[in-house]
């Protein structure tokens, strides 16, 4: 569009605009108008994102307790941070979280990508099965956590029944056993979120043009080479994106696990979010919890940034 077209278009638009509005708006410069349009967003962002973040950082240096509003709030410097990083319990919860994030990602990647490869063959009814597979993802995590407590019942639950149909383990107490509980939450999350990886993988697979495979076929590539040289590199950015999203989500996983095990037995499934919630809203150690939240935020933010750099390199 040439400059003249643009001005004439602007003139036309000005003429088409009802007179009073036009008069009011015309008094403003373009810059002022731009600020006017984005200010609601900026105000909201400041009010519900930026301010709480800064306030949390401030609180993390104090001994503030939200349930004792009349108490003197004292600046205690880095003491909250020292206590958290020096606590063996906290490192234990971080390990539990790492176990959860790592295994959910590994299993979901393998299953999601594998299912995507199957679905992508476009057999009869493949779109029906895609929809069926997507259902768990659409449920509420709290609901999923709650009903899996029934599925996991050692005596009456269907999970134990099915596993025992393959091999006679006896009743499996998935939630009550110290050994099994960390895997119980991994299984439920995998059941729920594998479809998500499947969807993104499918998007990646569908974006690969046929002629690449045909060219490879002419070049005498075998099925494995086609997968390794075409399919995998083309889907990899999609998979990495899926892992980024799911990894962040699972690092701060709360609702599903809170309903399913509430961190137990003992603290074998106590993810950092559960610890954080307890510190903040059960012990009411607001300053301490704020410091913990800041540490988690920095961790996720830092890892996320490193990961995005790697992702961009893969994309190139």
């Amino acid at each position, binding site marked *: 569009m040439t400059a003249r077209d643009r001005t004439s278009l602007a003139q036309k638009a000005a003429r088409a605009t009802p007179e009073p509005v036009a008069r009011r708006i015309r008094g403003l410069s373009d810059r002022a108008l731009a600020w006017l349009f984005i200010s609601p967003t900026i105000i909201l962002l400041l009010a519900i994102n930026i301010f709480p973040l800064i306030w949390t950082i401030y609180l993390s240096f104090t001994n503030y307790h939200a349930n004792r509003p009349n108490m003197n709030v004292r600046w205690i410097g880095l003491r909250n941070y020292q206590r958290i990083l020096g606590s063996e319990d906290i490192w234990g919860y971080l390990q539990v979280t790492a176990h959860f994030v790592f295994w959910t990602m590994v299993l979901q990647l393998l299953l999601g990508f594998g299912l995507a490869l199957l679905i992508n063959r476009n057999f009869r009814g493949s779109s029906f099965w895609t929809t069926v597979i997507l259902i768990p993802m659409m449920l509420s995590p709290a609901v999923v956590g709650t009903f899996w407590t029934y599925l996991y019942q050692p005596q009456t639950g269907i999970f134990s029944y099915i596993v025992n149909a393959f091999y006679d383990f006896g009743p499996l107490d998935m939630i009550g056993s110290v050994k099994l509980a960390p895997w119980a939450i991994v299984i439920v999350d995998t059941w729920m979120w594998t479809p998500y990886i499947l969807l993104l993988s499918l998007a990646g697979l569908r974006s690969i043009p046929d002629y690449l495979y045909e060219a490879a076929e002419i070049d005498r*590539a075998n099925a494995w080479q086609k997968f390794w040289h075409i399919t995998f590199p083309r889907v990899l950015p999609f998979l990495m994106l899926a892992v980024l999203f799911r990894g962040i989500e699972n690092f701060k996983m709360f609702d599903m696990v809170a309903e399913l095990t509430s961190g137990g037995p003992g603290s074998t499934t106590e993810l950092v979010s559960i610890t954080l919630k307890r510190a903040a809203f059960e012990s009411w150690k607001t300053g301490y919890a704020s410091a913990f939240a800041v540490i988690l935020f920095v961790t996720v933010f830092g890892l996320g940034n490193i990961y995005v750099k790697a992702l961009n390199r893969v994309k190139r």
Partner: protein
Amino acid sequence: MSELRLENLRKTFGAIAAVDDLSLRVADGEFVVLLGPTGAGKTTTLRLAAGLENPDAGAVFIGGREVTGLTPAERDVAFVFQQYSLYPHYTVFDNLAFPLRAPGRKWPEERIRSRVEEIAAMLDMEHKLQNRATQLSGGEMQRVSIGRALVRAPNLFLMDEPLSSLDAKLRESMRVELKRIQRDLGATILYVTHDQLEAMTLADRIGILEDGKLVQVGAPREIYENPVSVHAARRLGSPPMNILPPQALGLPDLPPAAAQIGIRPEDVELGGDSGIVARVESLEHLGASMVAGLGFGNERLHVLLDDSQRLRRGQQITFTLNREKIICFDSQGRRIDAPPAA
């Protein structure tokens, strides 16, 4: 020997016959171009030859051996796609080496290196061997695609509009390069395009396709001068042959079945006292030559002239047709041979 022979090939997609009873022979070392509009079945023919599609009927022979039903790999053909089918995350070197590293070939790395360098030199790409495929320009990518076809010296090259995604200037230089490479290697090539200029300049023989049928096969000059149908006539030449109703021209002694006559733009002469009166409606200067669009009655006619003629738009002018060059077609668009002199 690596001649290609297609015998009575037929391929349908649903109710549509993309290729209909097509037979064609490409001799060893010959460059044959299939020319036709979109949807004429050019690409399908090529894919049938490559083994990327299987025919519903008919047979494919390469080097005298029947290959119908064999996979592309077993046919040992090279295929250059319209889109640059490169592995984007690999370097130029790895892209060129890929066919040589395929299982069953197992060349030693050293031999691969020298072969790839040889091909890169031929394509003028030696200095780019370490570049990633995504860092190349469109012309370079297509050169690498062609290089990937050349690198393993296959029996037969199949090319599906390999130059169509390049800009005009690059297309011209690639055309020259392709012809040179084909001559140097003595390669057998079946090439598909809708660009008549590519067909004219590259082909030893051209096959004109229409609705899945091969309507004419011959040397470019031969088809240009003796087209068998209106369709074949208008496929070659730019501007295309003028097709006119004979009554508009008042031509005597035409065969009675002649429903249309064709005359090439260069076979019309302007001036003279006895010609048909027309008005100059458009002028296109092409450098050394120019194209004038003439209007007379309800008809239009293109004339190719050298640039020395001084014409103005709107000017009245007379023209005559070179009688020897008039070609008559019947109402189906088929050629009618001129009647014996009475």
